[in-house]
């Protein structure tokens, strides 16, 4: 039984509250438990990171929140409360009204995420046109403003251009503009910079953080890349095999992880400032989500594993305000970490 998402002191009801979310996928080999009891909270104006390797369920979580799961996947339990409304109970029409004005999403592949036959300006203007009841001219004006805000040069010309005429970084700026177009309260980001050049990544991240800070928009930022999370988010949650295994502020978790998996992630991230002779990888491979290991799902790969780790599935325990871990023996992590992981 996982703990309900903790409330941040002083912020009252959370903007987004995910309670015990379960997503299952029907496949030929059995039922995949892609998201297995995830709880999450995001306050107004906050940027929360969701970190894990591929297959950990982080993208599925975002999709479940938006109601954009692939046809084989279903939410089998849990609630997603946005401003008090349970999104899992809404039908298509109601969901469509929320997408855009209240909640928006940015995807990983800017190449394929834009309609190739529709002009870029129109794609940005589409949201305001449909949701805010603006006239075509007013929506176009708004699109131009947005293009300027996200730093697309020469917006009047570029308005009529098609996606294939843009570079990857520019397309992602377009996606950001689309996401901001109806001034949502929350933006979900699914690895938005992974597919970009390293130099462009930095620009986009800075842009995103600045814009969200300026407008007070909350973010959920999914990535497998620790330094990126550190740059963008204040809090983070670590996912493994469909579950959240650790939670806390970015400083807390990255300087002193309380879960061996997080420890492994931190250790294996190469750090330019403190070069190591060898990169430490996490041994073993991600577990099956159809028949996960008994007890703690990480135990086959964990060097601190003990008897009790294999028998009972450990819950996500709150240690103090905002800090939680699913490791029964998290103190072992404190001993293991050398001091090299500061920013």
């Amino acid at each position, binding site marked *: 039984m996982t703990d309900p998402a903790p409330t941040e002191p002083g912020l009252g009801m959370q903007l987004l509250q995910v309670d015990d979310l379960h997503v299952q996928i029907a496949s030929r080999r059995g039922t995949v438990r892609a998201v297995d009891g995830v709880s999450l909270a995001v306050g107004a104006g906050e940027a929360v990171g969701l970190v894990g390797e591929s297959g950990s369920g982080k993208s599925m979580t975002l999709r479940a929140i938006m109601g954009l799961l692939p046809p084989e996947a279903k939410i089998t339990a849990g609630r997603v409360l946005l401003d008090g409304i349970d999104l899992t109970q809404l039908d298509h029409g109601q969901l469509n009204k929320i997408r855009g004005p209240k909640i928006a999403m940015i995807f990983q*592949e800017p190449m394929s995420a834009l*309609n190739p036959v*529709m002009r870029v300006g129109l794609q940005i203007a589409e949201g305001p046109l449909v949701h805010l009841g603006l006239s075509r001219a007013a929506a176009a004006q708004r699109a131009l403003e947005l293009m300027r805000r996200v730093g697309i040069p020469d917006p009047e010309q570029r308005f009529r251009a098609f996606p*294939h005429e843009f570079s990857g970084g520019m397309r992602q700026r377009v996606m950001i503009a689309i996401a901001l177009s109806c001034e949502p309260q929350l933006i979900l980001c699914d690895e938005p910079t992974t597919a970009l050049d390293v130099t462009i990544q930095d620009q986009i991240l800075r842009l995103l953080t600045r814009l969200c800070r300026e407008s007070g928009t909350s973010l959920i930022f999914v990535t497998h890349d620790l330094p990126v999370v550190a740059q963008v988010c204040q809090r983070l949650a670590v996912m493994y095999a469909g579950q959240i295994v650790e939670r806390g502020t970015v400083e807390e978790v990255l300087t002193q992880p309380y879960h061996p998996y997080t420890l492994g992630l931190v250790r294996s991230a190469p750090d330019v400032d403190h070069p190591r002779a060898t990169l430490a990888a996490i041994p073993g491979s991600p577990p099956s989500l159809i028949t996960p290991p008994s007890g703690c799902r990480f135990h086959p790969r964990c060097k601190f594993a003990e008897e009790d780790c294999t028998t009972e599935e450990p819950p996500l325990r709150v240690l103090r305000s905002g800090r939680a871990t699913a490791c029964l023996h998290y103190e072992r992590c404190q001993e293991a970490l050398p001091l090299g992981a500061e920013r």
Partner: protein
Amino acid sequence: MGRMTFVYRRLLLLIPTVLGVTIITFFMIHLIPGDPARTILGIHATPRAVAILHREWGLNRPLASQYWLFMDRLVHGNLGTSLYYGVSVSSLITSHLPATLWLICYAAALAIVISVPLAMIAASRKNAVRDHVVRVVPLLGLGMPAFWLALILQTEFAVRFRLFPVTGYGTGFVGHLHSMFLPALTVAVALCPVVIRSLRASMLNVLGADFVTTARAKGVPAPRLFVRHVLRNAVIPAVTVLGINIGFLIGGTVIVESVFAVDGVGYLMINSIFQRDFPVVQGVALIFGIMVVVVNLLTDVAYASLDPRVRFDR
């Protein structure tokens, strides 16, 4: 390159093809076993008539010279004289062409109207019952002889139920719409299987694409999503397929015109075959060839108009 440059380039590439078409059409006369003139005239083959034809077609001259004669006439719009009607072939063709053009456009329009909803129904739930039904039923259309369907439709709806005229082209716009409905439907039925299959496949492709997820994430309502995002992308490959099969479409009009006695060039061709009117047959074959080439060009242009990525390549 802009759209016009695209068109000009395509036009230039067409020239060798059109030349080839003329060569084949020209050559048809030499495939006739024995003396072409004698064979064609049949029982009317008096020595004098044969000699006249020989002179008119230049059959005594060397091959290249004959071709030159043929092309020279062609460029001036002279396709020869009909043996049966005695008037110029080009005038015959000009008077019969409108009906065929009507039939082609009407059939293409009907095919689209039938295929788009069916493809949509199939693609909306892949591998469900309705998908399989939509995929199998058109297979019946693939194997269906056009003239047979034409006969049945004619007997049922025109003769028995008197809903449509039995034969003819009709007069006036509405008259055409009414008279040509059954013929156009017959031709469309042959076209639908191919169009449905291709539209369904491209719709399935598009439905799974990332940009559709983006649009859904934007909260775009279903009708707009379907038209401006899904359909708009899905038609692109389907247009190409339609264009490729226009050749069959046009060929199918020949027999359908005959059954419904619609006064088009196909009807003209069939009758001329039975009347052994070789110049007309040759002329019509040439026209058909040129029609297909033109339609292919239009398809390419339509494709370039629909897909902005194409124009900027190369």
